[in-house]
C-alpha cells in the first residue's frame, strides 16, 4: 500500500479506491443484494405497507414460482433447451475450431476469421430477425421446400420451440467457437503430428490430446452459451412469440405487472440456475474459474 501511495499519491489512491467502491458496491453488489431482499419479501401494493408489520421475510414468492405447473414447465424447458443449444453448438463448433487452428498458417485464415467476426458483430436482434424471415410461414425455407416438392403445406417453424432453438444456436454459437479456438491455438501442433506418425487414429488424437488440452475453452464456451441461451429474451420473443414462452419472459411479465417482488424471485431463480450450471461444468471438466475467465 505504501508503494502505491508513493506512485499515485493520496489523491490517486483515493480516486482508484473510490472508483472500485462506486463500481463494485453501488453498481454490482447493492443492486444484487436488493434483488435478493425483494425476492424474499411479499408484494405489497400499497406503498405505505412497505417497511411496516406486513413486510416480513417469506418464501411465498418462490412458492408461487414453483407451485404453478406452467412456470415449472417453462423452467424445465428453458434448462432443457439451453443444454440442447449448448451441446449442438459444441458439436458444430469443435470441428470448426479445430479446422481453423490447423489451417492457422494458410493465407485463408485471415479471411475465415473475418468471416466469423462479421456475423458476431451484427446485432443479436437483426440476426434473429433474419431467421424470422427465413422461418416464416411463407419464408425462404418453406418456399424452397415447397418448390422442391418435398412438402405440400408450409411447416410451422416460428412460434415453436424448434424455431427458438434454431435461432439460439445461430445467435450464440460464436461464443462457443472463440474460446474453443483460442485454447486449441495454444496446442503444440507437433503433439498431434507425433501422435499421427505413431499411428493413432483421429479419434484417439482428439480424445487423448486435443480435448484434454482445450478443456478450459470447452468449459467456458459451454458456460457462456448456456447462460446466453437461458438468459435470452430477444430470440424467444421474436421466434417463439406467444406460443413458446421462455423463463426470461416470465420475469419480464412480472415487472410489467409491477410485482417486483415476484419478478425478483424469478430473477433470483435464474441466477441460481446459472450458478449451479457453472459449478457443474467446472466440476465436470475439473477446471477452476481462473482457467475460464482468461
Amino acid at each position, binding site marked *: 500500500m505504501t508503494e502505491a501511495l508513493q506512485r499515485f499519491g493520496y489523491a490517486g489512491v483515493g480516486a*482508484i479506491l473510490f472508483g*472500485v467502491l462506486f463500481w463494485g458496491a453501488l453498481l*454490482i453488489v*447493492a443492486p444484487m443484494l436488493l434483488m435478493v431482499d425483494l425476492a424474499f419479501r411479499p408484494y405489497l401494493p400499497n406503498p405505505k405497507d412497505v417497511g411496516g408489520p406486513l413486510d416480513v421475510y417469506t418464501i411465498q414468492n418462490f412458492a408461487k414460482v414453483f407451485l404453478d405447473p406452467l412456470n415449472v414447465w417453462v423452467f424445465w424447458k428453458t434448462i432443457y433447451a439451453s443444454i440442447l443449444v449448448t451441446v449442438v453448438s459444441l458439436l458444430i463448433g469443435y470441428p470448426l475450431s479445430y479446422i481453423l487452428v490447423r489451417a492457422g498458417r494458410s493465407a485463408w485464415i485471415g479471411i475465415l476469421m*473475418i*468471416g466469423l467476426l462479421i456475423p458476431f458483430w*451484427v446485432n443479436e436482434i437483426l440476426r434473429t430477425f433474419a431467421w424470422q*424471415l*427465413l422461418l416464416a410461414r411463407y419464408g425462404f425455407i418453406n418456399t424452397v421446400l415447397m418448390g422442391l416438392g418435398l412438402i405440400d403445406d408450409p411447416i410451422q417453424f416460428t412460434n415453436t420451440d424448434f424455431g427458438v432453438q434454431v435461432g439460439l444456436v445461430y445467435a450464440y454459437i460464436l461464443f462457443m467457437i472463440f474460446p474453443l479456438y483460442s485454447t486449441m491455438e495454444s496446442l503444440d501442433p507437433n503433439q498431434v503430428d507425433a501422435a499421427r506418425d505413431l499411428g493413432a487414429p483421429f479419434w484417439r488424437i482428439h480424445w487423448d490430446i486435443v480435448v484434454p488440452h482445450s478443456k478450459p475453452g470447452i468449459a467456458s464456451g459451454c458456460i457462456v452459451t448456456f447462460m446466453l441461451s437461458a438468459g435470452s429474451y430477444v430470440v424467444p420473443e421474436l421466434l417463439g412469440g406467444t406460443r413458446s414462452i421462455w423463463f426470461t419472459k416470465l420475469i419480464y411479465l412480472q415487472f410489467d405487472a409491477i410485482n417486483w417482488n415476484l419478478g425478483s424471485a424469478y430473477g433470483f431463480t435464474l441466477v441460481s440456475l446459472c450458478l449451479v450450471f457453472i459449478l457443474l461444468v467446472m466440476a465436470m471438466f475439473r477446471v477452476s474459474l481462473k482457467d475460464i475467465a482468461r
Partner: protein
Amino acid sequence: MTSTVLVSADAASRPWLTSDQVMRISVGVYLTAFFLYMFLPLVYMMLVTFNDSRIPTLTPWKGFTLRWFQEMWADERMWNSVIKSFIIGFWVIVLSVPLGLAGALFMTRMRVLGQSFVYAVLVSPVLMPGIIIGLSTLVFWDTQFRIGGRWELSVLGQTSFIAAYCMLIFMARLTRFDRTLEEAALDLGATPFQAFRTIMVPYMRPAILSASVLAFLQSFENFNTTLFTIGNDITLTMFIAGKIRAGTTPALNALAFVMVAFTIAAGIVYEILRRREAARTEARARAARQAELAAEAGAG
C-alpha cells in the same frame, strides 16, 4: 492412416481417393456449409430490402425498388432512437473507461487484503444474464433513490458489466508496463499526477482507445439490460424490437442492410490494418535479423 476410400460415382476415371484427399474435401465441405449457414440469413435479410412488397420476403418477387431505404431514412422515430443510443454509448464510455482503469490499477498495482474477492465481484457481471443486471439496477435505483426507468439508468446498468471488459483490456496491457519509467519520473521530481499523465496515460492510450470502441459497441447493441432500465425512452435496439413485434415492412430490412454493410466495412478495415501490422512486424524482425548477421560478420 493409409486406408483408401472408393468413390462410386467416378469409378472409371479416378477410382481411388487417398484418405488425405477425403479429409481435405470434407474439411472444404464443412467450412463451406458453416459459412453459408453464417451468411445466408444475413444476405437474405439484405436482399429482401429491394423487393417491392409490403411484407419482408423475397418470394414472390414484385420488382426492384429502393423505396424502403427512403422510408427508413424519413423515419423520425428511428433517428431519435439512434441519437439516444449514441448518447447512452457516450456516457457508458465516460463511466466505463475510468472505472475499468481504476479496477485494473487496483488489481495490478496495489496489495490489499481480499483483492481476489474484489476481482471476482468486479468480473461477476460478465457471467450474469443481462436481464438480471437490468432488473437489479432498476429495483435498486428506483426503491432507494426514486430514480425510475430512463436512459440514465441504462447507462448505469450497462456500465456495471462493460467496465469489466475495459478492466480486462487494461490489465492485459498493464502486465507489460515498465515501472522503472514511472520511478524515474518520480525520482526526477514529478508529482504523482504528472507521472500518471505523462507516462501512464500515453502508454495506455491504445488500450483506452480499444476499450472505448468496445464499450460503445457493447452499449449500442445491448438489449437485455436496456429492456428493464430504459423506461419510456427508446434506443435503436428497442426500436428494432418494437418494429419486429408489430410486424414490419421491409423498411426495417433497409436499416438492417445499412447496419450489416457497416459491419462488413469495419471487418475489411480491421483485416487490412491487421495485415499491415503483421507486415510491419515481419519487416522489423527481418531488419533485426540482418543487423544481427551483419554484426556477427563484423565481429568475426
